[in-house]
């Protein structure tokens, strides 16, 4: 037959988590129980029922174009206006009602003086093995905090998802101050083989997106190149004992031994966290999925591949709506692909998608069923003096993220991060150079393919600071108001508890100062592509190949 099957040299993860995974003591067994349906109490996600308690907006709200639902009972935290921040039902009402900007930052800065002083980061934890030989399956491919920041999910190239949970601060261990420990580990996607095309479908998790919590269970969407899955992570700390017809070990009792009726009772048991796939959204993408984004109505989400964007309803797996299609009639004319897409955080009819030519298109789903015509088109005019053969490649946008407020969006191209005001299309309002010293090395970076690396970027909870990764395990934060920027390194050397991270500097001129690093000595195999910022506090998660570093702000 002669078809190619990429040789797999790594053992596949089955039921048990790989031993190379997190070093900290697992909080629970975290064994995946596929197929078990433990039905939770309360309404299901996305049904649109206007029941009591917090619930999604439902289809009837979407047509109105408003972001906030008519205040469903008890969940008045959501706002349509700017400064509302992400909706988090489990956030105490006092915090939810207040705009994020001043309160949270002042608290997090620790000095009570507002956001004027620079944030000092110190090491919190690192997860992952220290071996020099990194198994490819262990390379982290996505990192995402949930809406409250209590859960942190990572996906890797082996198709596994590991969820960390923040420990509650207890009086007995006041200094632990919210460490993250393993909560659940499960195999989300398996490698598949497309027989029609004779191609292997990678199990690498491209993106994870959490759904807002509506009941005791947690839900997240995880996707590989072709298939999106909705996972439910639930806790079980009770089990039923005393079944009438079954023994304790599950065997059926002999009928003659059943002499009386007994009703099972719930007995406490060790906490077990189960992950079960609740929906599988498959067969809708011909090309590789690069983004998923949950809508603010919490009933729909979009998935984007290189040429198309589809809209799904969380409850419906056998149908999706194609809302963007940039595939040319003649594939020979293809010159541009979609690189990322995201819904607006408040307006459930608005989404943006970025392209490989450095443009962003904002679309309004109310205007047409097929949003091939954009409502807004964002592109910065090219600087003719810096034009080179690599101009287009480095202008390709690898990530687009709305600010929490919804007023701004941030794009990451190869050398810079740009902040756009969505009301101004002709140029960004802010541009930050991430590693401008690489501009003279573009040819080499093209040769070794590093120029195609897709870096992500993220906002902090108050939208005052942005963060993105670079090479040599460096990552950078940019404070927008100052403007002030910092370069930090995620390394084992600075991994002592509460050790303050020392800012790093790359030497761009000939003279290298002490502690500076020359461009030529940068390790281009150590790249930080995925970072995440806690939605409310100054805690950041940085994925460095197979290790996950957690840093938090220094508290006096």
């Amino acid at each position, binding site marked *: *037959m002669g*078809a190619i*099957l990429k040789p797999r040299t790594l053992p596949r993860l089955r039921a048990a988590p790989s031993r190379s995974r997190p070093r900290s003591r697992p909080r629970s067994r975290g064994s995946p129980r596929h197929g078990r349906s433990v039905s939770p109490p309360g309404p299901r996600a996305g049904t649109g029922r206007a029941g009591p308690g917090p619930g999604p907006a439902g289809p009837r709200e979407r047509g109105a174009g408003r972001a906030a639902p008519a205040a469903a009972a008890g969940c008045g935290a959501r706002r349509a206006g700017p400064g509302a921040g992400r909706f988090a039902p489990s956030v105490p009402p006092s915090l939810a009602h207040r705009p994020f900007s001043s309160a949270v930052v002042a608290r997090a800065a620790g000095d009570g003086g507002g956001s004027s002083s620079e944030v000092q980061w110190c090491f919190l934890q690192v997860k992952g093995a220290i071996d020099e030989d990194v198994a490819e399956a262990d390379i982290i491919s996505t990192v995402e905090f949930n809406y409250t920041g209590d859960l942190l999910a990572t996906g890797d190239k082996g198709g596994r998802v590991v969820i960390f949970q923040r420990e509650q601060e207890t009086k007995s261990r006041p200094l632990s101050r919210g460490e993250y420990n393993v909560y659940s580990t499960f195999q989300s996607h398996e490698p598949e083989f497309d027989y029609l095309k004779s*191609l*292997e479908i990678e199990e690498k998790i491209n993106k994870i997106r959490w759904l807002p919590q509506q009941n005791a269970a947690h839900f997240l969407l995880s996707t590989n190149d072709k298939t999106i899955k909705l996972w439910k992570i639930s806790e079980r700390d009770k089990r039923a004992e005393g079944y009438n017809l079954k023994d304790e070990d599950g065997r059926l009792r002999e009928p003659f031994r059943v002499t009386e009726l007994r009703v099972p009772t719930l007995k406490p048991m060790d906490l077990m966290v189960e992950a079960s796939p609740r929906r599988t959204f498959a067969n809708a993408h011909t090309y590789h999925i690069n983004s998923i984004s949950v809508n603010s109505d919490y009933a729909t989400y979009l998935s984007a591949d290189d040429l198309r964007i589809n809209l799904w309803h969380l409850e419906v797996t056998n149908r999706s709506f194609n809302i963007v299609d940039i595939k040319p009639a003649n*594939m*020979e004319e293809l010159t541009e692909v979609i690189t990322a897409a995201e819904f607006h955080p408040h307006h459930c009819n608005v989404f943006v998608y970025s392209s490989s030519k450095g443009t962003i298109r904002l679309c309004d789903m109310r205007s047409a069923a097929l949003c091939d015509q954009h409502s807004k088109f964002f592109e910065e005019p090219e600087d003719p003096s810096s034009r*080179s053969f690599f101009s287009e490649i480095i202008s390709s946008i690898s990530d687009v993220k709305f600010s929490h407020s919804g007023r701004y969006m941030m794009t990451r191209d190869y050398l810079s991060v740009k902040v756009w005001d969505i009301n101004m299309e002709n140029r960004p309002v802010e541009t930050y150079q991430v590693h401008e010293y690489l501009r003279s090395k573009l040819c080499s970076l093209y040769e070794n393919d590093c120029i195609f690396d897709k870096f992500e970027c993220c906002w902090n909870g108050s939208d005052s600071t942005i963060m993105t990764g670079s090479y040599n395990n460096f990552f950078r934060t940019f404070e927008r108001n100052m403007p002030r920027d910092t370069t930090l390194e995620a390394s084992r050397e600075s991994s002592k508890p509460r050790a303050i991270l020392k800012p790093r500097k790359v030497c761009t001129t000939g003279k290298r100062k002490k502690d500076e690093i020359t461009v030529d000595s940068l390790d281009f195999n150590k790249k930080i592509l995925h970072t995440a910022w806690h939605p409310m506090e100054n805690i950041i998660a940085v994925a460095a190949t197979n290790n996950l570093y957690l840093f938090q702000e220094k508290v006096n």
Partner: protein
Amino acid sequence: MDTMFVRGLKRKCFDGEEDIEGTLAGIKAIPSYNLQRQSLLDMSLVKLQLCHMLVEPNLCRSVLIANTVRQIQEEMTQDGTWQMINTQSTGQASLDRLVSTDILCRSSRDQAEGKHVPAYGTFNKDFENDQAQDSSDTMSTASAVQAPRNLQSSVWEMENPQENKGNFQKSLDQIFETLENKSPNSVEDLFSEVDNSYYDLDTMLTGMMSNTKMGHCDSLETFSSSTNTASNSNCKSDLNDLDHIVEILVES
């Protein structure tokens, strides 16, 4: 620690010559710029071919590389470099040409002779030449292109060798089309031929691939994959098939 260079290719890059990029800075600099542009073109075509042969070609990367190639080609057309290359045409040198100039500078006599040497046979040799030579000879730096051209040139010849550089566009388009229209028979041929060849220099050098090159276009139209692959297969491909089947069985 120089970790920037994965390949053994001698560097022919723009590094350190900031002013050259994008401008023609004088007659003396022109050969150097052209040379660099040429090597960039070669590199890009090899990359395109590489991702053509990967299990799952990354469409974004392919599009970006293809656009770069187009850009180079346009610039070369504009400043007349195309013409320069055109005028120099020898029998053997035609193999070392750029992908598109292969068409441009083929005289009708060459076409009538139906010259088609399996370029894979020279791939290894030229690759080494590329590393060794000091890039003084601008014409032969296109040797790294042998591999991708093979796949395309047979198609071109069968279509219309007389067409001008529009065929170059077509070559890129072929790549996209095959990415897009993967029919089982063509895919099998596509991957059967290149998979073995790319990882096995011996197979390449013995010119076993030449058979499939000629048959490539045919198999796109007709379902003759079985005969082609059968004629192609050797022990190695059989072993690969066996491994492949075992893997599938093990996985399921």
